[in-house]
């Protein structure tokens, strides 16, 4: 048992009813100090943030104020309430089910008069209707459902007696558009129930202040004062984790992400432990690891697979088996990342470098869910560069350092959606609305003018050409309030709301193989295996084999929104290349990796193979420095290479590569292509860039000036497919284009088509449009890592070293191996067409 600090008098909760004391005592527990401190803070009327590691009884702490208050409610009080007493909001549907299960236990054991229900996208309509008529005391739900309820005409009635809002995994929620939507929803809830209090639950994060500000209602119409902060309760820290990097005798490859070399070692570890979780970074990797482990599974260990594309029923089965302790290991992706509490896990294996220290901490938290025993984890680097990254992650963990992102400035597309939702619930008073939304920390920045533009956008598209006044969705009534032109628009809103615009996915079903079926057509039905991205299936033709759900399947075809596959006998499948699940390296880890490489003293902890490799780099070229930038040039295979080592993550490197190629092109060096990894960037060209640098014709300082992010960036972005995808997301979230029409399902392709056309038209006719502004914000912040690039360009000024080498440097090897795996950019589309035309011409001239 850890020493627990005594509670100060002002931290004591007013009362913990005897029934709770007895309940704790009966299990041989006592309430933990942070649970009581949180209860005290909330009972005194504060909004509060609880920061606690996994396994610290966070969930119980969050519900304690509600349970205490509800434990004494009379039947009449319960019957008089016309909406939930407590809302619990989590980022994951699965989490609500899990929490409902966990809550039932204390409620049943203490015989409390409390009803708990969940409400998610999966909840049947009949149950949702019943919940409106006879609300549960505690409603467990997701941000999307809250927004939908707020768009209801009865929202005032539903929420006016709300007492508590419990926000679970708040650190995860605030970093996305869902967090924006939630921030706006919280502001509205506060207005409907001024006495309600918010309780945020979070794992340890870097930006505690940001989270506290997000949680606390701010002063309206005041963007400049220091933000008000919610009360903070921090749990005592548990035993530090034991984390090791796998020491394999096998040869560690220079590139690739499969970790194939380590499968034997991993299998050995699984055998030695009671129950292990094997985390991987992508779903395709999960498939591959699972498949390979089964192939070597001579002991018939019960090993299962869990990832987001699998059918819900399948996932529930695995979760249940875990809870019952029937499994030896589960191979999983971030689908098991958040605070779901299952089973007795004694080892976490991370395959491939974790892309952030906080994510790593979260995953390791799975092992040994008791605070007083240390968790045990093994990280398996997939290539030599990742060895460094893993080393950095372990150091960060030992130091207890965190790198997760804080709350973001709210998106304008989300604001537009929220405004439309509120309009569905009743007439909007512009001035009251402005006060309300600026009480949300993420939307403090919104000026009256910007809100008016957003309203105009919602009403008529907000175009300078006032063409649609007569079709306006929102109209001002005689009081100056905005209301819906037609009730049908509310239905349209409900179908299109939400902030997650996923890559189009299809349901995958198992059918008999075409060989056995003969010429008979594909049957309907067949067992649902899960969902799969359309983009991946596009690459397949009938008969192609791929891995899914741990099985090798043969692709049969697609009809409407369903894909069909049969069992395959092939033993060499094509591997699913899912889009989702690729995390960029966090800047915090990047800095640590850079530091390790730059300091030979720190290499002692590294495997010998990696040490040798770095030493060789030191001999043949030089080591990248911790703060500056190393640039290498060499010739290889008729091309001239320029290699940079910024260590800023793949996304930032891709942006940089794009911009540098444009600039080199303009300067006549004829670049041919580039390739980016998490650590480095290589550009190759016809002209000898190394010689040009030495001759003083190419100045690296000029090439890498901070103004690179000016006009070049704008010009490139405008044409890039990335911007179009971002625009499409914003257009869907803001409600400009529909997710689907009532009755008819619009395929992902159709949405993409029209969004591209709209983007082009808007750019040429109305470059200042609200939606283009929102798109730019999104792109700059997320996909392009512009801020990170900006910091990088500032940092390296006057600190660039150049090595002109006779051949490829040791450190550049992994990068050069990546060439050819990357897609081509630029005018490649037209070239493709030319190729096809040339083929035809050849055929014709035979």
């Amino acid at each position, binding site marked *: 048992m850890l020493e627990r600090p005594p509670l100060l008098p002002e931290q004591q909760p007013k009362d913990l009813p005897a029934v709770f004391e007895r309940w704790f005592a009966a299990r041989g527990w006592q309430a933990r100090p942070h649970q009581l401190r949180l209860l005290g803070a909330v009972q005194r009327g504060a909004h509060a943030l609880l920061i606690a590691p996994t396994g610290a009884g966070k969930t119980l702490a969050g519900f304690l104020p509600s349970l205490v208050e509800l434990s004494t409610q009379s039947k009449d009080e319960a019957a008089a309430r016309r909406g939930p007493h407590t809302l619990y909001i989590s980022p994951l549907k699965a989490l609500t089910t899990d929490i409902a299960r966990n809550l039932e236990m204390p409620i049943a054991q203490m015989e409390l008069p409390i009803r708990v229900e969940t409400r998610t996208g999966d909840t049947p309509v009949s149950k949702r209707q019943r919940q409106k008529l006879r609300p549960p005391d505690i409603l467990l739900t997701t941000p999307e459902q809250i927004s939908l309820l707020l768009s209801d005409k009865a929202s005032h009635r539903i929420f006016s007696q709300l007492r508590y809002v419990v926000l679970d995994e708040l650190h995860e929620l605030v970093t996305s558009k869902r967090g924006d939507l939630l921030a706006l929803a919280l502001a509205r809830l506060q207005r409907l129930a001024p006495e309600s209090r918010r309780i945020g639950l979070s794992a340890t994060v870097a930006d505690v202040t940001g989270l506290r500000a997000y949680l606390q209602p701010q002063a309206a119409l005041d963007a400049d004062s220091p933000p008000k902060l919610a009360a903070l309760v921090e749990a005592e820290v548990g035993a530090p984790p034991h984390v090791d990097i796998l020491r394999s005798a096998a040869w560690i490859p220079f590139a690739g992400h499969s970790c194939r070399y380590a499968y034997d070692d991993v299998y050995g570890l699984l055998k030695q432990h009671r129950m292990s979780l094997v985390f991987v970074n992508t779903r395709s990797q999960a498939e591959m690891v699972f498949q390979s482990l089964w192939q070597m599974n001579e002991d018939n260990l019960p090993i299962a697979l869990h990832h987001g594309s699998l059918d819900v029923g399948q996932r529930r089965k695995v979760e249940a088996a875990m809870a019952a302790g029937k499994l030896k290991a589960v191979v999983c992706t971030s689908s098991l990342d958040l605070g779901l509490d299952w089973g007795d896990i004694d080892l976490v294996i991370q395959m491939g470098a974790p892309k952030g220290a906080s994510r790593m901490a979260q995953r390791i938290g799975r092992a040994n869910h008791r605070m007083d025993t240390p968790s045990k984890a093994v990280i398996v680097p997939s290539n030599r560069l990742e060895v460094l990254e893993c080393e950095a992650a372990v150091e960060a963990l030992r130091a207890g350092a965190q790198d997760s992102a804080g709350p973001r400035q709210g998106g304008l597309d989300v604001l537009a959606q929220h405004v439309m939702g509120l309009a569905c619930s009743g007439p909007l008073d512009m001035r009251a609305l402005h006060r309300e939304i600026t009480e949300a920390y993420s939307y403090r920045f919104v000026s009256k003018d910007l809100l008016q533009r957003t309203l105009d956008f919602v009403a008529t598209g907000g175009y300078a050409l006032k063409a649609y006044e007569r079709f306006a969705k929102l109209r001002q009534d005689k009081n100056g309030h905005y209301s819906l032109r037609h009730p049908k628009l509310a239905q349209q809103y409900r179908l299109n709301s939400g902030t997650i615009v996923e890559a189009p996915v299809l349901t995958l079903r198992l059918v008999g193989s075409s060989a056995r079926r003969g010429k008979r057509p594909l049957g309907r039905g067949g067992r649902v295996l899960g969902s799969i991205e359309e983009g991946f299936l596009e690459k397949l033709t009938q008969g192609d084999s791929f891995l899914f759900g741990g099985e090798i399947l043969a692709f049969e075809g697609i009809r409407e929104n369903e894909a069909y596959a049969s069992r395959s006998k092939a033993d060499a499948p094509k591997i699913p290349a899912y889009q989702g699940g690729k995390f960029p390296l966090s800047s915090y880890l990047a800095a640590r990796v850079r530091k390790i490489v730059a300091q030979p003293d720190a290499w002692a902890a590294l495997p010998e193979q990696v040490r040798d490799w770095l030493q060789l780099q030191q001999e043949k070229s030089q080591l990248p420095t911790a703060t500056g930038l190393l640039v290498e040039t060499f010739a290889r295979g008729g091309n001239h290479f320029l290699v940079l080592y910024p260590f800023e993550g793949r996304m930032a490197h891709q942006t940089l590569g794009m911009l540098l190629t444009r600039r080199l092109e303009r300067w006549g060096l004829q670049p041919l292509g580039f390739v980016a990894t998490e650590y480095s960037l290589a550009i190759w060209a016809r002209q000898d860039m190394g010689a040009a640098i030495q001759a003083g014709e190419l100045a690296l300082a000029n090439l890498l000036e901070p103004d690179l992010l000016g006009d070049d960036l704008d010009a490139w972005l405008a044409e890039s497919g990335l911007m179009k995808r971002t625009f499409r997301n914003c257009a869907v979230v803001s409600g400009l284009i529909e997710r689907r029409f009532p009755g008819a399902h619009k395929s992902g*392709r159709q949405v993409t088509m029209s969004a591209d056309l709209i983007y082009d038209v808007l750019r040429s006719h109305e470059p200042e449009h609200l939606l283009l502004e929102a798109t730019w914000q999104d792109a700059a912040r997320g996909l392009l890592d512009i801020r990170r690039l900006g910091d990088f360009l500032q940092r390296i000024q006057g600190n660039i070293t150049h090595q002109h080498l006779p051949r490829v440097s040791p450190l550049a090897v992994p990068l050069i191996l990546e060439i050819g795996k990357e897609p081509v950019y630029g005018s490649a589309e037209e070239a493709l067409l030319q190729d096809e*035309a040339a083929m035809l011409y050849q055929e014709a001239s035979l």
Partner: protein
Amino acid sequence: MFGETELSLLYEGALWLPAARVLVVSDLHLGKAAAFAQAGVMLPPYDSHATLQRLADVVQRLQPVQVVCLGDSFHRPDSAPQLPQAAKEQLKLMQQGRDWVWILGNHDAQIGGGMDRRQLHELAIGALQLRHEPTAISQGDTLQICGHYHPAAKIRRMGRSVRRRCFAYSDQLLVLPAFGAFTGGLNLLDEAFTSVFTTQTRLKGVVMLGQEQLYNVHPRALVQDGARIASRRFRSPTSA
């Protein structure tokens, strides 16, 4: 060439008959965005202008004696009168000093508002028969020129694919791509084309629109959108 008639396909997606100096475009769908706006989907109101501007550029370059719009020129029957004033002016300006024929399509009613001109269901120019939709019976030595289907083609090479609007033709039929700014395309391998290019009137060629030129591709090179189950495949003209 079709018989004696020279046909010239333009990368903008229009057809040019040099001898008669006739310009043919199809499926302008003017007023499409406004029609969506009426249903609560506020697409940018610049599509009509953009479409007409592209048309004006071609007209300016070629100075046709006659312009034939192959139907579905307006997205909805009430789109013509509701067109923004500026677009109406733009259109009228183009119509000045040349013959202008509206072939009526399935979206069109009578066109008024000072933009009316000749309104026909069918127009013959030499051996060419210009209609909105093709008729089933082909008449000997005529070539039907149609729109309506918004053909698009998709090809795939080296793991990447390109999808563009296209011209598609058989011995008796030439289908034009849609010219309108907000008009999408329908993949040539879609079921809807089975009645257009039959075994008798087999698809012989596909010409995809590029940024500044056209690309001839073989019907065999076409692929479906999203690996849809093939409703049909075009066989090579030499086999069978």
